């Protein structure tokens, strides 16, 4: 708890590596140890089930293989989780992201269908821009409820979570809108430099966010608001503006995810698009070591969390279990991660390793 204000290390080993024993302690005490271990275990299980699982080959000018599928499918959750990380860092939560994703998909698809030239690149760009603009408005709305009216984040965003899918249905008129625009579907299924565009977009957002929060004071200000909004305001931090920005950012990320999902299926079903993605995103954030109590966040952790969820989703059918059982395994992962991260369980572990406590307290 002593180093709550210090930014989390962007990558393991970025700090000057200490001497022998404490390096071991840092590895065992690193918050990303267990998620990474879980991912390695999952990959090993996959390789045992299908020895060619990790093979990546070049086909049609781009990379092809299960790992590529995993990173492609992780894009929407990664995007939503990215926005969620910052919201949770301010001690908030955004439940409305799934509904916002549905609205973004609905806006983009109806816009493309209504355009005079349905297949043109310009149409796709305009549609996505419009969808993201709508998301900015929705995010501003959430931020207004939380920062100006001072409503608890969980209730404030519940409003949009309940109403949002209704709004998305209103936009699509209750129909499953199908679009036919090559540029739009490229967003989900296209490749650039051999890698899926969807993943590159998500990774680009993560990189940009990391740059903005860790190379400027923004990250620390966000954490300050999460630790104590009143104190940070008295210290001259614009707590209200930061809260507002964070919710808007989360909505934009969710909108981008919604557009990618819609592009992937080339259609929008307002009822099912992004269903439970908020839960997956929160799960990714928590796996990544960002506590729901706020005041601290780890973007690298969120990246690992989102990849872990995508790997899990891929593992279940690969080892011959029906994919519906995915939920069961997710539940196990949630409980396992929480038990490992729970302060009480950690305290019980630490009794046996006094050296760790000493290093962390320094």
């Amino acid at each position, binding site marked *: 708890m002593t180093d709550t204000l210090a930014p989390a290390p962007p990558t393991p080993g970025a700090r000057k590596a200490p001497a022998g024993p404490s390096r071991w302690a840092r590895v065992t005490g690193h918050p990303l140890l267990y998620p990474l271990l879980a991912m390695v275990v999952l990959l090993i299980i996959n390789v045992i089930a299908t020895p060619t699982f990790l093979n990546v080959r070049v086909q049609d000018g781009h990379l092809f293989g299960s790992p590529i599928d995993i990173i492609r499918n992780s894009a929407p959750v990664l995007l939503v989780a990215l926005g969620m990380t910052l919201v949770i860092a301010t001690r908030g*939560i955004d439940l409305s992201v799934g509904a916002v994703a549905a609205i973004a998909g609905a806006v983009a698809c109806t816009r493309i269908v209504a355009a005079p030239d349905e297949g043109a690149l310009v149409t796709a760009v305009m549609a996505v821009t419009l969808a993201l603009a709508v998301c900015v408005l929705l995010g501003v709305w959430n931020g207004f409820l939380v920062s100006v009216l001072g409503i608890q984040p969980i209730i404030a965003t519940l409003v949009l*979570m*309940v*109403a949002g899918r209704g709004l998305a249905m209103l936009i699509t008129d209750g129909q499953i809108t199908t679009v036919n625009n090559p540029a739009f579907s490229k967003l989900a299924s296209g490749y650039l430099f051999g890698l899926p565009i969807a993943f590159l977009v998500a990774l680009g957002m993560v990189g940009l966010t990391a740059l903005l929060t860790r190379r400027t004071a923004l990250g620390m200000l966000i954490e300050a608001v999460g630790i104590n909004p009143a104190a940070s305001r008295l210290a001259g931090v614009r707590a209200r503006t930061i809260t507002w920005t964070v919710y808007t950012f989360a909505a934009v990320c969710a909108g981008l995810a919604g557009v990618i999902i819609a592009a992937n299926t080339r259609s929008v079903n307002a009822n099912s698009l992004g269903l439970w993605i908020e839960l997956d995103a*929160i799960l990714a954030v928590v796996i990544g070591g960002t506590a729901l109590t706020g005041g601290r966040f780890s973007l690298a952790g969120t990246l690992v969390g989102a990849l872990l969820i995508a790997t899990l989703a891929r593992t279940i059918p690969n080892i011959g279990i029906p994919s519906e059982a*995915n*939920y069961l395994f997710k539940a196990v992962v*949630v409980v396992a991660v929480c038990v490992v991260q729970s*302060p009480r369980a950690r305290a019980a572990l630490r009794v046996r390793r006094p050296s760790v406590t000493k290093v962390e307290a320094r």
Partner: protein
Amino acid sequence: MSTTVAESVTLWERVRTYSPPSRFLPVIVTFAVFLGMFGVGGVRYEGFAHPQVFLHVLHDNAFLIVLAVGLTFVILTGGIDLSVGSVVAMSTVIAAKTLELGWPPALAMLTVLIAGTLLGTIMGLLIHYLDIQPFIATLAGLFLARGITYLISVRSIPITDETFREIAYASIPLPGGHYTTWLVVVALSTVLIAAYVLARTRFGRTVYAIGGSESSAMLMGLRVALVKVGVYAISGFCAALGGLLFALYLLSGYSLHAVGMELEAIAAVVIGGTLLTGGRGYVVGSMIGVLVYGTIQTFINFDGTLSSWWTRIAIGVLLLVFVVIQRVATRGPR
């Protein structure tokens, strides 16, 4: 109030200046909204204000009332239970599957109730003893229940059992030529029992105390552990009971039943005047919250030109209004 003239004047004075205790205010506001909606509906649509319409609203939302009652306990302690929708789906599938296997109906019902209560208890234990946040622990419960449901059966199983069908179709005559169903009776009994437990028992008062301040409750020597695990067990039980009612209502078990029902239940509880921060609220309020939700649906049915998604938008708007009112109300006294 048996009276002389002088007293009746003061009585009038008392009635005129009477203001209900502020703690009942949210429930009264919700009730007024409910009455107002029924009144507007009665004026606009022929046959809307008929008592049988009201009984139908009760019948169509009996399961939601039971869910909201269980959830009220959890929310009063300042927690949340996201798993209720999934537990409803799990209950319908367990009931349908066990009946398909030829189990006696009573045993099938018992299995459902035990499964729900057990899941709730496990979540409560995780929350209290491992300090896992209610949101995350019940999120695990949501995934677990949905996963179990998929494992039991992916396809929809019809319920053909005679006893179940009899209970589902039986109508109980009421005075005035109206009738109601066992679903309504079960739901209303749940509300009554829950209201009694919350208002008159040690357990119920401890629920409010934990919602007010958990550490104070602990320092007062109240049995925080028992009650905190207990509320999640109650919520699990209520979700299972709601699931049984849902199975009776639709006479089928399906893994895609009740997707997002936890939202409807939480919305109903909030509209019913219970604070999500805990410590304030009544089960009767939650019931009226569900009735408001049901009335909106009836409104849309009667209107005919509005599409079903307006229900969600209307509930969202109503939720917003109540949340803002609550915010203003709780800010006032400070």
